[in-house]
């Protein structure tokens, strides 16, 4: 920021370019003069000088066009921010507000203000801590292999293949299937008693795996569903980034004697760094919010991520506390805790990815 400003122009240029009307450009010229002289202008000076100079009144049309120039850009982008405010920012703030209040269970009404009591409950609740461990375990089992496999798939798709469009479409196919439908399919694969995988294991003389009972196996099953759905999607994003890598880089690399693998690590990977960051940050956010898969994977009527909460993720905890147990305050507190954790992890990921890929580039 500071660097750019000290170069002089851009800020002032923006003003003169934007405002066609006379006084504004005069002001810009004024600003230039201050800068040329190398004088420090006290914040108020230029401004207080303007009205004192007797600013000529603008005609209505001039004023309109001035507003147009100033306001329209904001109006054009406002739908996003209005929608974001309504469905993003407001719920966030309202959740924070609720998290400080008790909840009248029977009447489904907000209760008294109780300060941080809900946060105390959530942070000392062993079930919440268990759900955090589950969340991270499922996240690691899904996001890490997902990104690696997606990059590999993208690299394969980036070569001259016969029927390229077909292959590209087919990796995206799982993404089109509704998660609920996917869970149903995987449910019959991973059923404990009468499931396909266990039948196969049984066929080759191995012990059946208790997918819904053993904690880490259940995480693996859920991570499998998540990966199945998202790997192809991420691969396509990587592919798009890879195709934007200038081909002459590969040519020079090849001339320098770099093989395919070397080209991949020293040309492709550094060149898709921004995309890497994007995919890693979004899949972190998504990976820490897994809900549908564990909820539907559980076929006991309570659906609380297994009777022993073996695969209850933190989002599922929020749902159970809020909707099933009817404690909106506690659910809101848990939501805020999770939100802060996700922000923290996303920032950490961002920093790490930058650091690592920058090191490689240098």
């Amino acid at each position, binding site marked *: 920021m*500071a660097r750019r*400003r*000290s170069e*002089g122009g851009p*800020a*002032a240029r923006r*003003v003169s370019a934007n405002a066609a009307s006379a006084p504004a450009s005069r*002001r*810009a010229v*004024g*600003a230039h003069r*201050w*800068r040329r002289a*190398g*004088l*420090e*202008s*006290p*914040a*108020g*000076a*230029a*401004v207080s000088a303007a009205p004192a100079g007797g600013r000529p009144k603008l005609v209505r049309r001039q004023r309109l066009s001035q507003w147009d120039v100033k306001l329209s850009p904001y109006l054009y982008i406002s739908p996003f921010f209005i929608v974001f*405010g*309504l469905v993003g*920012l*407001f719920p966030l*703030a*309202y959740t924070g*507000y609720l998290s400080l209040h008790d909840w009248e269970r*029977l*009447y*489904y*009404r*907000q209760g008294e203000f109780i300060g941080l009591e809900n946060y105390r*409950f959530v942070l000392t*609740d*062993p*079930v919440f801590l268990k759900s955090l461990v589950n969340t991270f375990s499922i996240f690691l089992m899904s996001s890490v292999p997902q990104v690696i496999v997606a990059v590999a798939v993208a690299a394969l798709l980036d070569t001259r293949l016969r029927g390229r469009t077909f292959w590209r479409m087919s990796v995206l196919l799982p993404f089109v299937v509704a998660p609920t439908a996917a869970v149903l399919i995987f*449910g019959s694969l991973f*059923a*404990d*008693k*009468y499931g396909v995988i266990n039948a196969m294991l049984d066929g080759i003389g191995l012990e059946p795996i*208790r997918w*819904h*009972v053993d904690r880490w196996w259940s995480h693996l099953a859920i991570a499998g569903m998540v990966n199945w759905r998202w790997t192809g999607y991420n691969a396509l994003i990587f592919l798009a980034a890879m195709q934007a890598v200038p081909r002459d880089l590969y040519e020079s690399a090849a001339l320098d004697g770099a093989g395919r693998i070397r080209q991949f690590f020293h040309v492709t990977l550094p060149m898709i760094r921004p995309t890497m960051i994007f995919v890693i940050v979004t899949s972190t956010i998504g990976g820490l919010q897994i809900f549908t898969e564990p909820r539907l994977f559980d*076929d*006991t*009527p*309570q*659906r*609380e991520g297994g*009777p*022993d909460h073996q695969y209850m993720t933190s989002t599922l905890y929020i749902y159970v506390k809020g*909707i*099933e*147990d*009817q404690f*909106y305050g506690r659910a809101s507190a848990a939501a805020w805790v999770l939100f802060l954790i996700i922000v923290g992890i996303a920032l950490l990921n961002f920093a790490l990815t930058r650091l690592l890929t920058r090191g490689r580039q240098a």
Partner: protein
Amino acid sequence: MRITDTGPVRRPTSYRRRLAIGAVTALVLGLTAACGGDDDPTKSADQQQLGDGETLTITTFGEFGYDELIEEWNKENPDVQVEQTKVSLWDDWKNELNTLLQANEGLPDIVAIEGDFMPALVAAPERWVDLSGEDVDGRWLEFKSDAATTADGKLLGYATDAGPEAICYRADLFQKAGLPTDRAEVAALMTTWEDYYALGEQFVAKSDAQWYDASGSVAQAMLNQVEFPFEQEDNTVNVENDELRAVYDTVTGNADALSTGAAQWSDDWTAGFQKDGFATIPCPGWMRSNIRDNTGNPAPKGVVWDVADVFPGGGGNWGGSYLTIPQSSPHQEPAKEFAAWITAPEQQIRIFEQYGNFPSQVAALEDPALLKSADPYFNDAPVGEIFSNRASAITTQPYHGPLYSDILGKFQEAITRVDQGGDAKESWETFVTEVAALQ
């Protein structure tokens, strides 16, 4: 170089930023305040006529057996068309209902409520329409209407069915294991829980199948004979009582030997009906349609279901639901009229004959048509007579407080944990902490 271009350029930026922050804060606070304390859920909605194309909505769960009856009503009442939404599981509907009640919006005109959840409604009666009236006075068995009546005499729900329990059993599996198959003989062998479990051990010794469908279902059956399972009369929660602990210990102690290990209503549980998974199942009237649907109708070759006129440890009532009308309904009068019609004895008898849901209406229970009714799917068992006997054998009505349904869910999970190989003692401790977290 120093930053020199403050003043004219920077000032509007920070001004704008402040304005933007101000605007966003105002928006958020405004909306927060707006949503904070608006419409009172205990206030009745403005009543409106059913407009053109508008329907009365009703949401049921499981199988209420209303399809044909609603069709009939719609033919006779062109002005009051009824539209039913069916949810397959009560637990799923309960969650959705909780959400709708919280929002106080989107509720159907008529809400079906599982009997176990009724005490929660009675504890917050202002949200529901008082349905009492002379025409329905004395229509139901006393314990059914009492459970839906507030201290000051408001009736919040019309009872649909009752759940007197018998034992349904697979006569073909009994025969293969060398047990008697005749329903009177079978009944004589399981009058107490000790007998029932002992017979089970005898059975599993000679069969690949398990003795009962799920630990959770036997637990619930036993629970229905405990006077104060989870809550005392003043609604204080007390789960660490001897009777409940005895049920828990018996069920978890027998889980390995006698149960399928599947959680009730899970996919493995459903599959167990077709795969000869188990031989007996605690059988309230409404369970018959579940058995029929899960086993397949007509029954697969060789499969013979039957009903024994007995329930271990006396009688027991499991479930039976209610129809209620929330204050948010804008069509309370026609809704009440329809609910009264569909819960009338004549309609309930037809449901019993077709689906098996046993009436809770006094007149229906005395009806000769009911007493004569037999079920060909269950080896022509005289189900009318059997379930009437089972209803009169009920001596204990367990006390259900407002938290009953929620605690029951946690109790079922505790049992499933042990079914899955968890330690019974640890699972019980988890249950106690989870119940504490509900208060």
